[in-house]
């Protein structure tokens, strides 16, 4: 890792963290509502993966703010979406769980657990026959790995040798359900290792995530078929704002906090002499500022009009008939 990379990773993770902390505050204030799933603790996964997988299509679940930002989505537009404003990426119609931006090939925010996986597989099929080798990146949780949609996707992607990276964020919990209660093993790459190359990595280390996704990317780009990565990680907050996360022990939380992806990257970079202390200070300040700007933007942004209720439902041709 060179210094520029480390700086980039650090800044994006910090930006993501600040974004989430602030989103939480704005939720408390009532500016954001509905289900809000924070990525705090898992920034290494979001940033490392998006920085490695720059070209192809990305399909995500509902815990996707930091993924979106790392992908290049303007935090202003993300925050505005969380605020339900017309300037939001999904015009305020989607909210936190549904951030879509085809310009970034970012099909984010599916809130049906596992539901985006068959879609990602279909996209990978299309890319293959279109001769585009960048392929697809699909991210999901440990909970999703028990769903029929997941297994069908693994089978099809492997049978047809599709260019897709399956990235499993194993944070051990699906809301309050520990993975060990509902899966015969906790190391989930075992589920698929007969189907495709499958590895388990430390998802708290942004460099490890980045490198493994790079490896996977090369693999799928070479037409070798799908690739599976399980990243061990942890969310510090509850599942969503309506969950306090009491089912977990303090000790467990502390263990993972001690592996904090942001803090550890900083320490390591300083120790290795890769980045000077002043950078981090400046980066922290800048991240806060960028989030502040996002919030200000979102606050000033406009409420949709009632007349927009029936917009965006159909293409023009169908709209003409339906209305």
């Amino acid at each position: 890792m060179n210094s520029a990379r480390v700086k980039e990773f650090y800044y994006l993770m910090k930006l993501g963290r600040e974004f989430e902390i602030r989103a939480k505050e704005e939720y408390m204030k009532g500016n954001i509502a509905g289900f809000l799933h924070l990525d705090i603790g898992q920034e290494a996964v979001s940033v490392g993966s998006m920085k490695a997988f720059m070209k192809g299509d990305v399909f995500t679940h509902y815990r996707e703010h930091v993924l979106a930002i790392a992908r290049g989505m303007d935090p202003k537009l993300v925050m505005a979406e969380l605020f339900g404003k017309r300037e939001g990426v999904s015009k305020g119609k989607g909210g936190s769980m549904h951030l879509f931006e085809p310009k970034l090939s970012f099909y984010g925010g599916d809130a049906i657990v596992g539901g985006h996986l068959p879609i990602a597989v279909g996209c990978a099929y299309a890319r293959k026959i279109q001769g585009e080798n960048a392929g697809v990146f699909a991210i999901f949780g440990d909970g999703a790995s028990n769903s029929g949609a997941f297994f069908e996707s693994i089978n099809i992607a492997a049978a047809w040798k599709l260019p897709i990276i399956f990235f499993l964020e194993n944070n051990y919990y699906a809301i309050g359900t520990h993975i060990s209660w509902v899966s015969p093993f906790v190391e989930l790459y075992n589920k698929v290792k007969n189907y495709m190359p499958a590895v388990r990595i430390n998802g708290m280390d942004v460099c490890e995530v980045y490198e493994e996704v790079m490896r996977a990317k090369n693999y799928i780009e070479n037409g070798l078929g799908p690739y599976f990565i399980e990243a061990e990680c942890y969310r510090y907050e509850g599942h969503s704002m309506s969950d306090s996360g009491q089912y977990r022990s303090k000790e467990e939380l502390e263990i993972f906090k001690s592996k904090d992806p942001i803090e550890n990257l900083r320490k390591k970079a300083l120790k290795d002499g890769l980045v000077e202390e002043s950078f981090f200070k400046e980066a922290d300040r800048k991240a806060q500022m960028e989030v502040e700007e996002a919030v200000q933007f979102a606050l000033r942004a406009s409420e949709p009009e009632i007349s927009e209720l029936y917009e965006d439902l159909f293409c023009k041709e169908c709209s003409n008939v339906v209305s």
Partner: protein
Amino acid sequence: MLYREALNKAIDEAMEIDKSVVILGEDVGRYGGSYRVSEGLFAKYGKERVIDTPIAELSIVGNAIGMAIAGLRPVAEIMTVNFSLLALDQIINHASKFRYMSGGKLAIPLTVRMPGGVSRQLAAQHSESYETIYASIPGLIVFAASNPNYAYHALKKAIFLNDPVIFLEHELLYNEEGEVDFNEDLDPFKAKVVKEGEDITVISYLKMVKDSLKAIEKIEKSLNITCELIDLNSLRPLDMQTIANSIKKTKRAVIVEEDHKSGGYGAEVCARICEELFYELDAPVLRIAGEDVPIPYNRKLELASIPTPDKITAKIISWAKENGV
């Protein structure tokens, strides 16, 4: 007693009475259920009877059917009605048909509970009402609980019926307070006249009963008439008797549902009325329902997409005026 407490009590008592009652679903156990309906049951009955499942709705219902065949009385929870689509093959192709296609040899004493409806800014994938789907399936019983009393009685009775029951709950009702009359011998299949009146029959279910009641107060004042309010309770079978009794008196009917209007459950109610009570009607039936769009996240748009007490009031008043009430 809160609505969710009433549900909890119904399950608790059923489990107490009959060891074959088990509950299963995502987070129903150690977590206590995402709307706290199963709170305390894991501690009381243990993990064999209070089962935390993986996120696999097809299996939640499929497993429950297998348990029912084996002689248990499973109560499955689907965390939100939207996810029940993943289980629909099991509910329709299996649970609803097994007794019939086995020539009566199989019984499926299964209850599937589902919270649904438009809550608060949960957006398109978490805000639906699929009563139109469930109420269209032969072999299913569909109950919809609008208040703690019905919730308690109907759920407990549902658990002991020997056929599959879809038990619909509304997410915004869980913390509603209401009295439960434990001595009542409630018939879960019967609609309830919530309020009597002479001039208009308002028919509703789930959360819209409450909203209709609010609207009715204003309408009665504004038009100087009285409205009768019927809470359907059972959506399949539909209690036409109670509806007919009321319409024969009022000559006018309004249906209020949160569901999208086109193809919504109200269509069936409206059709039954128009077929069977045509000559009683002095005005066209009015359907007040959700708009025909997926539910948007933005609060203003979200409210615009469903009936509210104010909109119900305005629509009924203008319809009444147009039709000479």
